[in-house]
Protein backbone atom coordinates (compact mmCIF):
# COMPACT_ATOMS: atom_id res chain seq x y z
CA UNK A 1 0.00 0.00 0.00
CA UNK A 2 2.92 2.33 0.65
CA UNK A 3 3.57 2.69 -3.10
CA UNK A 4 0.03 3.80 -3.74
CA UNK A 5 0.57 6.99 -1.82
CA UNK A 6 2.68 8.51 -4.57
CA UNK A 7 0.09 7.69 -7.19
CA UNK A 8 -2.71 9.95 -8.17
CA UNK A 9 -5.76 8.49 -6.46
CA UNK A 10 -7.83 9.36 -9.50
CA UNK A 11 -5.75 7.06 -11.68
CA UNK A 12 -7.43 3.81 -10.63
CA UNK A 13 -10.80 5.34 -9.89
CA UNK A 14 -13.73 3.54 -11.42
CA UNK A 15 -16.23 6.26 -10.57
CA UNK A 16 -17.27 8.80 -7.99
CA UNK A 17 -19.51 8.23 -5.04
CA UNK A 18 -21.40 10.80 -3.00
CA UNK A 19 -20.85 10.60 0.74
CA UNK A 20 -23.21 12.39 3.08
CA UNK A 21 -21.18 12.59 6.23
CA UNK A 22 -22.55 13.48 9.66
CA UNK A 23 -20.57 16.43 10.95
CA UNK A 24 -20.72 17.66 14.51
CA UNK A 25 -18.29 20.36 15.58
CA UNK A 26 -19.48 21.29 19.07
CA UNK A 27 -17.37 24.44 19.29
CA UNK A 28 -19.03 25.81 16.16
CA UNK A 29 -22.52 24.46 15.84
CA UNK A 30 -25.34 23.56 18.17
CA UNK A 31 -26.75 20.92 15.86
CA UNK A 32 -25.01 18.44 13.60
CA UNK A 33 -25.14 18.87 9.86
CA UNK A 34 -24.53 16.61 6.87
CA UNK A 35 -21.62 17.47 4.64
CA UNK A 36 -21.49 16.11 1.12
CA UNK A 37 -18.28 14.87 -0.46
CA UNK A 38 -17.83 13.61 -4.01
CA UNK A 39 -15.17 10.93 -3.71
CA UNK A 40 -13.44 9.11 -6.58
CA UNK A 41 -13.34 5.46 -5.58
CA UNK A 42 -11.50 2.38 -6.73
CA UNK A 43 -13.06 -0.96 -7.46
CA UNK A 44 -12.08 -2.68 -4.20
CA UNK A 45 -12.60 0.29 -1.90
CA UNK A 46 -14.40 0.03 1.37
CA UNK A 47 -16.40 2.89 2.91
CA UNK A 48 -13.44 3.47 5.23
CA UNK A 49 -11.15 4.03 2.21
CA UNK A 50 -13.50 6.74 0.99
CA UNK A 51 -13.45 8.41 4.43
CA UNK A 52 -9.66 8.24 4.48
CA UNK A 53 -9.64 9.87 1.05
CA UNK A 54 -11.81 12.69 2.40
CA UNK A 55 -9.51 13.18 5.38
CA UNK A 56 -6.32 13.05 3.31
CA UNK A 57 -7.41 15.05 0.28
CA UNK A 58 -10.50 17.07 1.03
CA UNK A 59 -11.07 17.95 4.68
CA UNK A 60 -8.52 16.97 7.30
CA UNK A 61 -10.79 18.02 10.13
CA UNK A 62 -13.11 15.03 9.64
CA UNK A 63 -12.94 12.90 12.78
CA UNK A 64 -13.56 9.17 12.97
CA UNK A 65 -11.91 6.09 14.47
CA UNK A 66 -10.13 3.34 12.61
CA UNK A 67 -7.06 1.22 12.95
CA UNK A 68 -6.54 -2.21 11.42
CA UNK A 69 -8.55 -2.07 8.16
CA UNK A 70 -9.16 -5.81 8.38
CA UNK A 71 -12.15 -6.33 10.65
CA UNK A 72 -10.15 -7.22 13.74
CA UNK A 73 -9.71 -4.09 15.85
CA UNK A 74 -13.39 -3.16 15.94
CA UNK A 75 -12.83 0.60 15.97
CA UNK A 76 -14.29 1.70 12.61
CA UNK A 77 -17.92 0.87 13.35
CA UNK A 78 -20.30 3.48 11.95
CA UNK A 79 -23.83 3.70 10.76
CA UNK A 80 -23.82 3.39 6.96
CA UNK A 81 -27.19 4.09 5.34
CA UNK A 82 -28.68 3.48 8.76
CA UNK A 83 -27.10 0.05 9.33
CA UNK A 84 -24.34 -0.37 11.90
CA UNK A 85 -21.34 -1.86 10.06
CA UNK A 86 -17.56 -2.03 10.17
CA UNK A 87 -16.66 0.53 7.49
CA UNK A 88 -13.49 -1.44 6.71
CA UNK A 89 -15.63 -4.41 5.67
CA UNK A 90 -18.32 -2.63 3.66
CA UNK A 91 -17.71 -2.39 -0.10
CA UNK A 92 -18.68 0.85 -1.82
CA UNK A 93 -19.63 -1.23 -4.87
CA UNK A 94 -22.38 -2.86 -2.86
CA UNK A 95 -23.90 0.52 -2.03
CA UNK A 96 -24.06 1.92 -5.55
CA UNK A 97 -25.34 4.18 -6.93
CA UNK A 98 -25.29 6.04 -3.62
CA UNK A 99 -25.34 8.48 -2.02
CA UNK A 100 -23.90 6.80 1.07
CA UNK A 101 -25.01 8.33 4.36
CA UNK A 102 -22.52 7.91 7.17
CA UNK A 103 -23.56 8.54 10.77
CA UNK A 104 -21.90 7.80 14.09
CA UNK A 105 -23.02 4.61 15.82
CA UNK A 106 -26.46 5.07 17.31
CA UNK A 107 -26.93 4.98 21.07
CA UNK A 108 -23.67 6.66 22.04
CA UNK A 109 -23.29 10.39 22.73
CA UNK A 110 -21.36 11.99 19.88
CA UNK A 111 -18.16 13.80 20.81
CA UNK A 112 -17.30 15.00 17.33
CA UNK A 113 -18.31 14.01 13.80
CA UNK A 114 -18.34 10.20 13.68
CA UNK A 115 -16.70 9.67 17.07
CA UNK A 116 -18.94 8.42 19.85
CA UNK A 117 -18.21 8.23 23.56
CA UNK A 118 -17.95 4.52 24.44
CA UNK A 119 -17.17 5.13 28.11
CA UNK A 120 -20.53 3.75 29.19
CA UNK A 121 -19.73 0.36 27.65
CA UNK A 122 -16.25 0.25 29.18
CA UNK A 123 -17.74 0.84 32.61
CA UNK A 124 -20.41 -1.81 32.12
CA UNK A 125 -17.93 -4.32 30.76
CA UNK A 126 -15.92 -4.10 33.98
CA UNK A 127 -19.03 -4.66 36.06
CA UNK A 128 -19.59 -8.14 34.56
CA UNK A 129 -16.00 -9.16 35.49
CA UNK A 130 -14.86 -10.45 32.10
CA UNK A 131 -11.95 -12.47 33.34
CA UNK A 132 -11.43 -15.94 34.77
CA UNK A 133 -12.36 -16.09 38.44
CA UNK A 134 -11.06 -19.10 40.37
CA UNK A 135 -12.63 -20.31 43.59
CA UNK A 136 -9.10 -20.64 44.91
CA UNK A 137 -6.03 -19.11 43.37
CA UNK A 138 -3.39 -21.70 42.57
CA UNK A 139 0.32 -20.95 42.50
CA UNK A 140 1.86 -20.54 39.07
CA UNK A 141 3.79 -23.80 39.54
CA UNK A 142 0.48 -25.67 39.51
CA UNK A 143 0.65 -25.25 35.75
CA UNK A 144 -1.94 -24.73 33.06
CA UNK A 145 -5.51 -25.85 33.45
CA UNK A 146 -6.19 -28.10 30.48
CA UNK A 147 -9.46 -28.09 28.59
CA UNK A 148 -10.93 -30.55 26.14
CA UNK A 149 -11.87 -29.29 22.66
CA UNK A 150 -15.49 -29.73 23.70
CA UNK A 151 -15.01 -27.47 26.70
CA UNK A 152 -13.41 -24.81 24.49
CA UNK A 153 -16.28 -25.10 22.03
CA UNK A 154 -18.74 -24.19 24.81
CA UNK A 155 -17.51 -20.58 24.98
CA UNK A 156 -15.43 -20.10 21.82
CA UNK A 157 -18.20 -18.32 19.90
CA UNK A 158 -18.59 -15.69 22.63
CA UNK A 159 -14.85 -15.13 22.82
CA UNK A 160 -14.81 -13.84 19.24
CA UNK A 161 -16.20 -10.44 20.30
CA UNK A 162 -14.03 -7.51 19.19
CA UNK A 163 -15.96 -4.82 21.15
CA UNK A 164 -16.92 -3.02 17.95
CA UNK A 165 -20.19 -1.81 19.51
CA UNK A 166 -22.28 -2.61 16.45
CA UNK A 167 -24.60 -4.66 18.68
CA UNK A 168 -25.18 -1.69 21.00
CA UNK A 169 -25.90 0.55 18.02
CA UNK A 170 -28.39 -2.02 16.71
CA UNK A 171 -30.15 -2.44 20.06
CA UNK A 172 -33.23 -0.22 20.48
CA UNK A 173 -33.39 -1.24 24.16
CA UNK A 174 -29.95 0.24 24.81
CA UNK A 175 -31.17 3.50 23.29
CA UNK A 176 -34.40 3.52 25.27
CA UNK A 177 -33.02 2.15 28.57
CA UNK A 178 -29.51 3.56 28.96
CA UNK A 179 -28.97 1.48 32.11
CA UNK A 180 -29.10 -1.78 30.13
CA UNK A 181 -25.80 -3.67 30.42
CA UNK A 182 -26.13 -4.51 26.74
CA UNK A 183 -25.39 -7.31 24.28
CA UNK A 184 -21.58 -7.48 24.08
CA UNK A 185 -21.01 -7.16 27.84
CA UNK A 186 -23.48 -9.97 28.57
CA UNK A 187 -22.05 -12.16 25.80
CA UNK A 188 -18.59 -11.63 27.30
CA UNK A 189 -19.90 -12.46 30.76
CA UNK A 190 -21.26 -15.69 29.28
CA UNK A 191 -17.91 -16.32 27.62
CA UNK A 192 -16.45 -16.68 31.13
CA UNK A 193 -19.49 -18.29 32.74
CA UNK A 194 -19.30 -21.11 30.21
CA UNK A 195 -15.54 -21.56 30.59
CA UNK A 196 -14.75 -24.76 32.50
CA UNK A 197 -11.87 -23.01 34.29
CA UNK A 198 -14.11 -20.29 35.70
CA UNK A 199 -15.91 -20.25 39.06
CA UNK A 200 -17.25 -16.69 38.86
CA UNK A 201 -20.79 -17.32 37.61
CA UNK A 202 -22.32 -16.50 40.98
CA UNK A 203 -20.44 -13.20 41.27
CA UNK A 204 -21.58 -12.22 37.79
CA UNK A 205 -25.15 -13.20 38.53
CA UNK A 206 -25.23 -10.28 40.97
CA UNK A 207 -25.35 -7.87 38.06
CA UNK A 208 -26.63 -10.03 35.21
CA UNK A 209 -29.82 -11.18 36.92
CA UNK A 210 -30.96 -7.62 37.61
CA UNK A 211 -33.49 -5.83 35.46
CA UNK A 212 -30.77 -3.83 33.74
CA UNK A 213 -28.91 -7.09 33.25
CA UNK A 214 -30.58 -9.67 31.06
CA UNK A 215 -34.19 -8.77 31.85
CA UNK A 216 -34.20 -5.45 30.00
CA UNK A 217 -33.67 -7.46 26.82
CA UNK A 218 -36.88 -8.13 24.88
CA UNK A 219 -35.13 -10.20 22.22
CA UNK A 220 -35.30 -7.86 19.27
CA UNK A 221 -32.39 -9.96 17.99
CA UNK A 222 -30.82 -7.22 15.86
CA UNK A 223 -27.54 -7.40 17.83
CA UNK A 224 -26.90 -10.87 16.45
CA UNK A 225 -27.84 -9.79 12.93
CA UNK A 226 -25.25 -7.00 12.80
CA UNK A 227 -22.45 -8.82 14.67
CA UNK A 228 -19.46 -9.12 12.30
CA UNK A 229 -18.07 -12.07 14.29
CA UNK A 230 -21.24 -14.18 14.63
CA UNK A 231 -21.06 -13.97 18.40
CA UNK A 232 -24.88 -14.13 18.73
CA UNK A 233 -25.19 -11.91 21.81
CA UNK A 234 -29.01 -12.27 21.67
CA UNK A 235 -28.61 -16.02 22.08
CA UNK A 236 -26.18 -15.50 24.98
CA UNK A 237 -28.70 -13.27 26.76
CA UNK A 238 -31.60 -15.69 26.29
CA UNK A 239 -29.47 -18.59 27.52
CA UNK A 240 -28.66 -16.56 30.57
CA UNK A 241 -32.33 -15.82 31.20
CA UNK A 242 -33.02 -19.56 31.23
CA UNK A 243 -30.05 -20.19 33.53
CA UNK A 244 -31.07 -17.39 35.91
CA UNK A 245 -34.64 -18.71 36.06
CA UNK A 246 -33.46 -22.25 36.77
CA UNK A 247 -31.21 -20.91 39.49
CA UNK A 248 -34.12 -19.03 41.03
CA UNK A 249 -36.28 -22.18 41.08
CA UNK A 250 -33.42 -24.16 42.58
CA UNK A 251 -33.01 -21.59 45.34
CA UNK A 252 -36.75 -21.88 46.05
CA UNK A 253 -36.54 -25.65 46.35
CA UNK A 254 -33.45 -25.61 48.55
CA UNK A 255 -34.12 -22.90 51.15
CA UNK A 256 -30.85 -23.42 52.98
CA UNK A 257 -28.85 -22.46 49.91
CA UNK A 258 -27.39 -18.98 49.89
CA UNK A 259 -28.27 -16.60 47.06
Amino acid sequence: MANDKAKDPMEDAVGTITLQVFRYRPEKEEEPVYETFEVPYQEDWMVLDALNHVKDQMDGSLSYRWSCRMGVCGSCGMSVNGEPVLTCATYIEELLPGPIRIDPLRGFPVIRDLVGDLGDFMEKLQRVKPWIIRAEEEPLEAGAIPQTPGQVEEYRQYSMCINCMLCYAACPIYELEPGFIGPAAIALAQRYNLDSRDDGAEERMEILSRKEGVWDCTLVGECSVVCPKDVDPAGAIQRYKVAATMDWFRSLLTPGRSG
Partner: protein
Amino acid sequence: MTSRKEGVSGGNGETSPPSPSAEAGTPEGTIPEEVHAMGDRGEPSAPENPHHTRYHPKWHREPIPITWWTRNRRYAAFILRELTSVLVLYAGVLLLVHLVALSRGPESHAAFQEWLGRPGVVVFHLLVLAGLLYHTVTWLNLAPRAIVPHIRGRRIPPRVVLLAHYLAWFALSAVLLAVLWPTLRG
Protein backbone atom coordinates in the same frame (compact mmCIF):
# COMPACT_ATOMS: atom_id res chain seq x y z
CA MET B 1 -14.34 25.09 5.68
CA THR B 2 -10.80 25.89 4.65
CA SER B 3 -9.85 27.78 7.77
CA ARG B 4 -9.80 24.78 10.06
CA LYS B 5 -6.54 23.32 11.22
CA GLU B 6 -5.72 19.86 10.02
CA GLY B 7 -5.42 16.54 11.77
CA VAL B 8 -7.59 17.24 14.76
CA SER B 9 -8.33 13.76 15.97
CA GLY B 10 -9.98 10.65 14.78
CA GLY B 11 -7.54 7.81 14.62
CA ASN B 12 -4.15 7.45 13.09
CA GLY B 13 -4.83 8.60 9.58
CA GLU B 14 -1.86 9.53 7.47
CA THR B 15 -0.53 13.06 7.58
CA SER B 16 -2.75 15.48 5.78
CA PRO B 17 -1.41 18.14 3.45
CA PRO B 18 -1.54 21.50 5.18
CA SER B 19 -4.47 23.56 4.16
CA PRO B 20 -3.33 26.88 2.62
CA SER B 21 -5.30 29.05 4.98
CA ALA B 22 -4.56 27.06 8.13
CA GLU B 23 -1.90 29.57 9.17
CA ALA B 24 -3.72 32.59 7.84
CA GLY B 25 -5.08 33.63 11.21
CA THR B 26 -8.59 34.35 10.06
CA PRO B 27 -11.02 34.81 12.93
CA GLU B 28 -12.05 31.19 12.59
CA GLY B 29 -8.48 30.02 12.21
CA THR B 30 -7.45 31.45 15.55
CA ILE B 31 -9.43 28.83 17.40
CA PRO B 32 -7.25 25.83 18.08
CA GLU B 33 -9.59 22.96 17.42
CA GLU B 34 -7.41 20.59 19.36
CA VAL B 35 -8.95 22.12 22.43
CA HIS B 36 -12.18 20.43 21.56
CA ALA B 37 -10.71 17.16 20.39
CA MET B 38 -10.88 14.01 22.43
CA GLY B 39 -7.38 13.55 23.67
CA ASP B 40 -4.96 16.06 25.10
CA ARG B 41 -6.79 19.31 25.61
CA GLY B 42 -4.93 22.56 25.56
CA GLU B 43 -5.91 25.82 27.18
CA PRO B 44 -9.55 26.62 26.70
CA SER B 45 -10.28 29.31 24.19
CA ALA B 46 -13.42 31.29 23.65
CA PRO B 47 -15.41 29.02 21.41
CA GLU B 48 -18.08 30.20 19.02
CA ASN B 49 -20.51 27.92 20.76
CA PRO B 50 -20.50 29.10 24.38
CA HIS B 51 -22.08 25.85 25.53
CA HIS B 52 -19.01 23.91 24.53
CA THR B 53 -15.84 24.52 26.49
CA ARG B 54 -12.96 22.46 27.76
CA TYR B 55 -14.70 21.89 31.06
CA HIS B 56 -18.14 21.72 29.62
CA PRO B 57 -17.97 19.52 26.54
CA LYS B 58 -21.15 19.34 24.62
CA TRP B 59 -22.06 15.90 23.40
CA HIS B 60 -24.67 15.42 20.77
CA ARG B 61 -27.38 12.91 21.63
CA GLU B 62 -29.60 11.79 18.81
CA PRO B 63 -33.25 11.81 19.91
CA ILE B 64 -35.10 8.50 19.69
CA PRO B 65 -38.21 8.87 17.54
CA ILE B 66 -41.29 6.94 18.61
CA THR B 67 -41.23 5.40 15.14
CA TRP B 68 -37.82 3.80 15.72
CA TRP B 69 -39.26 0.40 14.82
CA THR B 70 -39.85 1.53 11.23
CA ARG B 71 -36.09 1.84 10.68
CA ASN B 72 -35.89 -1.67 9.28
CA ARG B 73 -38.06 -4.67 8.58
CA ARG B 74 -36.63 -6.76 11.42
CA TYR B 75 -37.56 -4.13 14.02
CA ALA B 76 -41.09 -4.06 12.58
CA ALA B 77 -41.28 -7.86 12.70
CA PHE B 78 -40.20 -7.69 16.36
CA ILE B 79 -42.86 -5.11 17.24
CA LEU B 80 -45.49 -7.21 15.47
CA ARG B 81 -44.40 -10.25 17.51
CA GLU B 82 -44.69 -8.23 20.73
CA LEU B 83 -48.08 -6.77 19.80
CA THR B 84 -49.55 -10.13 18.81
CA SER B 85 -48.93 -11.27 22.39
CA VAL B 86 -52.11 -9.31 23.21
CA LEU B 87 -53.94 -11.78 20.96
CA VAL B 88 -52.50 -14.65 23.01
CA LEU B 89 -54.09 -13.07 26.05
CA TYR B 90 -57.34 -12.65 24.11
CA ALA B 91 -57.32 -16.34 23.09
CA GLY B 92 -56.83 -17.33 26.72
CA VAL B 93 -59.72 -15.14 27.87
CA LEU B 94 -61.90 -16.49 25.05
CA LEU B 95 -61.20 -20.02 26.23
CA LEU B 96 -62.18 -19.07 29.80
CA VAL B 97 -65.40 -17.42 28.62
CA HIS B 98 -66.14 -20.56 26.66
CA LEU B 99 -65.67 -22.72 29.76
CA VAL B 100 -67.80 -20.39 31.89
CA ALA B 101 -70.57 -20.54 29.26
CA LEU B 102 -70.37 -24.32 29.29
CA SER B 103 -70.58 -24.48 33.07
CA ARG B 104 -73.67 -22.26 33.16
CA GLY B 105 -75.74 -24.71 31.18
CA PRO B 106 -77.12 -25.22 27.67
CA GLU B 107 -78.77 -21.81 27.27
CA SER B 108 -75.67 -19.88 28.12
CA HIS B 109 -73.62 -22.11 25.85
CA ALA B 110 -76.05 -21.71 22.98
CA ALA B 111 -75.82 -17.92 23.31
CA PHE B 112 -72.04 -18.12 23.26
CA GLN B 113 -72.14 -20.27 20.15
CA GLU B 114 -74.55 -17.90 18.45
CA TRP B 115 -72.09 -15.08 19.15
CA LEU B 116 -69.19 -17.15 17.82
CA GLY B 117 -71.08 -17.75 14.58
CA ARG B 118 -71.72 -14.10 13.74
CA PRO B 119 -69.92 -13.11 10.51
CA GLY B 120 -68.09 -10.19 12.11
CA VAL B 121 -66.84 -12.37 14.97
CA VAL B 122 -65.74 -15.07 12.54
CA VAL B 123 -63.73 -12.57 10.49
CA PHE B 124 -62.20 -11.12 13.65
CA HIS B 125 -61.27 -14.58 14.92
CA LEU B 126 -59.62 -15.45 11.62
CA LEU B 127 -57.45 -12.34 12.05
CA VAL B 128 -56.74 -13.39 15.64
CA LEU B 129 -55.73 -16.83 14.39
CA ALA B 130 -53.32 -15.30 11.87
CA GLY B 131 -51.78 -13.18 14.64
CA LEU B 132 -51.53 -16.17 16.97
CA LEU B 133 -49.80 -18.26 14.30
CA TYR B 134 -47.34 -15.43 13.59
CA HIS B 135 -46.60 -15.03 17.29
CA THR B 136 -46.21 -18.74 17.91
CA VAL B 137 -43.99 -19.47 14.92
CA THR B 138 -41.69 -16.47 15.46
CA TRP B 139 -41.48 -17.29 19.17
CA LEU B 140 -40.81 -21.01 18.79
CA ASN B 141 -38.15 -20.32 16.18
CA LEU B 142 -36.20 -18.40 18.84
CA ALA B 143 -36.29 -21.26 21.33
CA PRO B 144 -33.09 -23.06 20.23
CA ARG B 145 -31.10 -19.91 20.97
CA ALA B 146 -32.37 -19.72 24.55
CA ILE B 147 -32.39 -23.42 25.37
CA VAL B 148 -29.10 -25.21 24.89
CA PRO B 149 -29.48 -28.48 26.77
CA HIS B 150 -26.72 -31.00 27.36
CA ILE B 151 -27.05 -34.72 27.80
CA ARG B 152 -24.02 -36.40 29.29
CA GLY B 153 -21.87 -33.42 28.41
CA ARG B 154 -22.95 -33.31 24.77
CA ARG B 155 -24.87 -30.40 23.34
CA ILE B 156 -28.24 -31.27 21.84
CA PRO B 157 -28.42 -29.85 18.29
CA PRO B 158 -30.63 -26.75 17.83
CA ARG B 159 -32.75 -28.63 15.24
CA VAL B 160 -33.78 -31.15 17.87
CA VAL B 161 -34.78 -28.41 20.31
CA LEU B 162 -36.81 -26.69 17.61
CA LEU B 163 -38.52 -29.91 16.56
CA ALA B 164 -39.37 -30.74 20.17
CA HIS B 165 -41.07 -27.36 20.57
CA TYR B 166 -43.16 -27.81 17.43
CA LEU B 167 -44.13 -31.35 18.43
CA ALA B 168 -45.19 -30.12 21.87
CA TRP B 169 -47.20 -27.31 20.27
CA PHE B 170 -49.01 -29.68 17.88
CA ALA B 171 -49.64 -32.26 20.59
CA LEU B 172 -51.13 -29.70 23.02
CA SER B 173 -53.24 -28.13 20.27
CA ALA B 174 -54.55 -31.57 19.30
CA VAL B 175 -55.52 -32.32 22.92
CA LEU B 176 -57.27 -28.96 23.28
CA LEU B 177 -59.11 -29.42 20.01
CA ALA B 178 -60.17 -32.96 20.95
CA VAL B 179 -61.63 -31.67 24.22
CA LEU B 180 -63.37 -28.60 22.78
CA TRP B 181 -64.55 -29.92 19.41
CA PRO B 182 -67.67 -31.71 20.72
CA THR B 183 -68.77 -28.60 22.57
CA LEU B 184 -68.36 -26.43 19.49
CA ARG B 185 -70.52 -28.60 17.26
CA GLY B 186 -73.42 -28.13 19.65
